[in-house]
């Protein structure tokens, strides 16, 4: 399907790229459908474009591209909310908060986006408080680019 994106014009996204958030994303519970696609100029970054509200687009990273020791523990019960029964079905992304000084851009490691790769259902999971926060520098740590 052709998706109208906020920054990249119209982009063709196949049906696999349509992600359903039955409970929405925290703070944006009204928006349930998003298109997920690679950023055209940087394949390490994915865009999560709301299909309900064109102004809402998140930039995501695969956490292990930038935080190789990222370690999350999600209960089976929680994974069942989006019908995940096996680890093979899990895809994990984290939302970035961009800053004008790009080196100050952070990723929210406390609340990852979990996607069921089979049925494309997704949810934002809140990890228990511990080592991760809502803001971790992405581009100026000792790891990453």
């Amino acid at each position: 399907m052709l998706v109208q994106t906020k920054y990249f014009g119209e982009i063709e996204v196949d049906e696999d790229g349509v992600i359903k958030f039955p409970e929405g994303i925290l703070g944006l519970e009204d928006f349930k459908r998003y298109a997920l696609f690679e950023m055209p100029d940087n394949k390490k970054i994915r865009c999560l474009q709301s299909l309900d509200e064109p102004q809402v687009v998140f930039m995501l990273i695969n956490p292990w591209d930038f935080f190789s020791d990222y370690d999350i523990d999600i209960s089976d019960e929680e994974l069942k909310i989006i019908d995940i029964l096996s680890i093979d079905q899990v895809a994990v992304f984290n939302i970035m908060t961009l800053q004008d000084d790009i080196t100050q851009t952070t990723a929210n490691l406390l609340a990852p986006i979990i996607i069921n790769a089979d049925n494309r259902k997704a949810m934002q999971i809140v990890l228990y408080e511990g080592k991760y926060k809502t803001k971790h520098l992405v581009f100026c740590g000792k790891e990453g680019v």
Partner: protein
Amino acid sequence: MLVLTRKTDESIFIGNHIKVTILHSEDGKVRIGINAPSNVKIHREEVFNLIREENKSAFVLTTEHISQLKDV
């Protein structure tokens, strides 16, 4: 909102499986014990508020941000 008064060591049930017990209270602070099934997630309200605020600032992007992302 349902408002109940409880003394120390008294509990309330939420549904059949969630038990909330007042363990201690002093100087406006209350220590609460919660017994709940493992599929019930329990967080302080502040954590949710923090994530809501972070999400709301995360989608406020500019074309300048996007063009800078090409080079990282």
